């Protein structure tokens, strides 16, 4: 096998342009956040004008005081302007003009400002995502506290009823949209090339686009708040959503933009993991995080387009008054319900699977043992992903459609417990006779299993139609999915951020503060969401601002716990920012004594990751085998390097 082991020249232009009859072209300008905002504003204004010009006589939709076509066009063209401002189109247009774009040489050290530009370096994109996601999460989390404040009392209201629904919808939608990428964005982009021994991601420009889609998506969704919001919650059921004002159009466009982001990110992920693995990194040796990423990427690629289609249909119904989603004019409100949940159910696994992948990836480091039943954990991820496409109607057991399909959907949903259970088998096997180190990330990992257990077993209640007849649409369901998402995914993220700051930033967080914040978050989280199961069982529906007076004490308990939870999360974030900006305690090269290839590269990760393409000899989980040789040879010599030798895994 002849593999090029010479140092790579990086992404750059060929040197023999003249000989090949090509003309070199410098980038016209370097896009950054500022130029993007300018481009976006110009596009927005133009789109608004255009919409009013072509559809000025359209009757306004329900409560909106504006022409809905103008709103859609301003958002869409504004987004195009945003990308023009970022310089996204420079490269393809230069190519179309027969020019050969030349990237200016990059310095070895990544600058601060680079993080505000349209960077194609996967490490920069990873960091952009990390802080972007953190911001989105905190904003949406703050809205959650707004919800809990209202629910302190069943009769005294803080918010007007429309504001309350807006806040619930904003919180849910922002979380569900943005958090799909909370692991793939930061960890996937930053770590996958390092873990699989690649110098770059397969499609760096798509990768940059995937991040820069999230920003307008977030801004547009947030802007709905001062446009009357959207009354439909994150599920956007028609015809309620057809009634909505301009805020509902923001929902459509923002969600679709995030959909494009996911598609870009996942195409990139699939192509990279399949094609850019270093020699020796067979599928059987691939880190479980990479398995998680490729599984999730495939799931995104198959489910997200359905969401975008659905949003398109809704936008047509709202903008130009087609009637595909409402009855009485030939459409059906069931169409949206099906389209939405055909995406929506896989989506909840888009949230859950990366959390599991990251958890299983880190667990052996702290248990000091190999992953137990490694193949089973991969099978678990794939099994869940495949089954997730066959369960969507469990959200519609009460809807009145297809009663004869209920046993089937009950079965498929319950079947998902089998591959999900594999992950417990893996975890329980992995800690058996380990030498567990209770470092802060490990505490979060253990909490993942505690929390998800609640989320998992209550999922069985939801899937059982007779019990779902009780819990559907109640706070029981809401507690269930917060245990699976907040309790599982976000706890895994907290573990991951803590664990990888030494690699990404070269610093270590304050352990004392880390432990304190962990215990506050863990206890407050459970104290917030466990009573919600009871509240739901006692008959309180979701998304209501009034509830039975006898439930007030429970609700107050929950709200106060939620404030404490917010405080705990704040403490965690302060720890991160403080350590980054002020104390900057150096972490040393491999503080967790991990065997992962990413730690072999070490901090600071060079611009090109590897000087030569490494050769991988074993999987990264061989703790306790007494064999301390690194998992990969970073400096393979000559032809021999290309001979891929087998390790013991």
């Amino acid at each position, binding site marked *: 096998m002849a593999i090029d082991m010479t140092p790579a020249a990086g992404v750059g232009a060929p040197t023999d342009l003249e000989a090949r009859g090509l003309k070199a072209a410098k980038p016209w300008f370097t896009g950054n956040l500022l130029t993007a905002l300018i481009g976006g504003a110009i596009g927005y204004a133009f789109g608004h004008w255009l919409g009013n010009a072509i559809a000025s006589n359209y009757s306004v939709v329900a409560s909106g005081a504006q022409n809905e076509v103008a709103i859609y066009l301003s958002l869409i063209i504004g987004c195009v302007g945003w990308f023009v401002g970022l310089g996204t189109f420079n490269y393809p247009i230069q190519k179309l003009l027969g020019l050969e774009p030349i990237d200016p040489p990059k310095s070895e050290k990544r600058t601060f400002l680079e993080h505000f530009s349209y960077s194609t370096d996967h490490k920069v994109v990873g960091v952009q995502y990390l802080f972007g996601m953190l911001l989105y999460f905190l904003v949406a989390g703050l809205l959650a506290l707004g919800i809990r404040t209202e629910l302190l009392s069943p009769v005294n209201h803080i918010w007007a009823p429309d504001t309350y629904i807006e806040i619930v919808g904003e919180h849910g939608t922002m979380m569900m949209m943005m958090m799909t990428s909370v692991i793939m964005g930061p960890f996937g982009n930053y770590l996958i090339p390092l873990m699989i021994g690649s110098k770059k991601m397969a499609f760096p420009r798509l990768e940059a686009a995937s991040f820069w889609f999230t920003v307008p998506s977030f801004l547009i969704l947030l802007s709905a708040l001062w446009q009357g919001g959207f009354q439909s919650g994150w599920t956007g059921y028609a015809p309620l959503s057809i009634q909505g004002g301009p805020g509902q159009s923001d929902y459509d466009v923002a969600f679709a933009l995030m959909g494009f982001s996911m598609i870009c990110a996942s195409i990139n992920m699939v192509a990279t993991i399949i094609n850019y693995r270093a020699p020796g990194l067979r599928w059987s040796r691939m880190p479980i995080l990479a398995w998680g990423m490729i599984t999730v990427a495939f799931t995104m690629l198959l489910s997200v387009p359905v969401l975008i289609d659905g949003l398109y249909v809704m936008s047509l119904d709202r903008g130009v008054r087609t009637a595909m989603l409402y009855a009485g004019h030939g459409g059906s409100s069931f169409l949206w319900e099906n389209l939405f949940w055909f995406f929506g159910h896989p989506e909840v696994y888009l949230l859950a699977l990366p959390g599991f992948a990251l958890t299983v990836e880190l667990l052996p480091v702290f248990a000091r043992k190999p992953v137990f039943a490694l193949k089973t954990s991969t099978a678990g991820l794939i099994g869940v992903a495949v089954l997730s496409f066959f369960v969507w109607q469990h959200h519609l057991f009460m809807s009145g459609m297809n009663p004869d399909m209920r046993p089937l959907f009950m079965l498929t949903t319950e079947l998902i417990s089998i591959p999900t259970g594999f992950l417990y088998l893996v975890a329980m*096997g992995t800690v058996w006779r380990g030498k567990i180190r209770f470092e802060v990330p490990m505490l979060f990992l253990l909490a993942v299993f505690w929390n998800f257990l609640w989320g998992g077993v209550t999922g069985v209640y939801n899937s*059982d139609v007779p019990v779902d007849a009780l819990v559907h649409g109640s706070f029981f369901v809401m507690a269930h999915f917060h245990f699976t998402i907040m309790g599982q995914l976000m706890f895994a993220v907290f573990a991951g951020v803590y664990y990888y700051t030494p690699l990404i930033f070269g610093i270590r967080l304050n352990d004392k503060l880390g432990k304190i914040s962990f215990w506050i978050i863990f206890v407050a989280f459970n104290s917030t969401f466990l009573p919600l199961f009871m509240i739901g069982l*006692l008959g309180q529906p979701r998304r209501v601002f009034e509830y039975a007076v006898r439930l007030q004490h429970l609700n107050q308990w929950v709200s106060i716990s939620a404030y404490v939870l917010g405080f705990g999360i704040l403490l965690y974030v302060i720890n991160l920012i403080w350590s980054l900006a002020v104390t900057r305690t150096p972490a040393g090269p491999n503080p967790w004594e991990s065997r992962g290839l990413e730690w072999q590269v070490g901090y600071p990760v060079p611009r090109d990751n590897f000087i030569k393409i490494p050769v991988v000899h074993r999987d990264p989980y061989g703790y306790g085998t007494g064999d301390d040789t690194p998992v990969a040879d970073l400096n393979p010599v000559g032809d021999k390097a290309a001979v891929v030798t087998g390790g013991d895994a």
Partner: protein
Amino acid sequence: MAMTQEERNERREYAKKAGWKIFAIWLVLSIIAVALILYVWGPHMPPGDMTTSAASQQFDFKVLTAMVAPVLLMVWVYGGWSLINFHATKTDRGDGIPLRGNRKVQGLWYVGSAVLVLFLAGFGTYELINGNGVGTGEGPSPIWKPTAKHMLVVQVIAQQWRFTYRWPQFGGMETTSINLPANTTVQFDVTSLDVIHDFWAYQLGVKADANPDVNNVAYTTTSSQLGRFTVRCDELCGIWHGAMYNYGHVVSKSAFYSWASNMETKNASVTKLLPPFATTYTPSYSGAGGGYYPSYDPNGHAVTY
């Protein structure tokens, strides 16, 4: 890496000893938990047993909880044991034992979880069919129906933001409150005039989406328990969704019939103006957008005002 026979024996011995202890703790706790769930909490589990469907929901909830408790306990007992026994200390920060799998354990897990899950799916299906849909909306052409000869039909009409009820067996009258007779099988025809709502009568164990242009049918049978039940909208329907609730009562048969015939006479003048009873109503056709319904328009044409 080959391991010596000695190491292998030590592991097996340890697993056997610890395994038995874990199993014993788990078994004792599980028996206690299941007993508490079935006999202490069980009779008080939501949503009570005011109707057949509520009772089925309660029964299913009880069975699931009794099955889930041992699963929770297994993970907790095992996890607790592991955290206590398998951790590093200040002096010993070495590695654990490099186990990569165990056929027997893995096989047992696969089979065990599959059996459990298949049982649950079978159980749920049996309950669903046997309970005539356990109070859930079955759409316009229900497939699981009660066999009762006489059924009381109540149409639930949802609109932003209230419920009204129509009674085809009482001259098609429409009321703003709901009473039901004891010991009677009831058929709910649930529909909506605008967006999707959901009719959730908590104590009755009935839940069915109210879709515009769709008749969603649900069944239940009341018992001899009399009393109040809560009706809440359980699907987000806009601003005042949170305020879309009211109360109904299960009353004795005689009380019900006198209430109903009373209402029928009282409402007769209004009933005349309503569109004829139908399973669904489309406002844009019937003129609910503002005006008389065409077939009942005393002037012979719809008036918009």
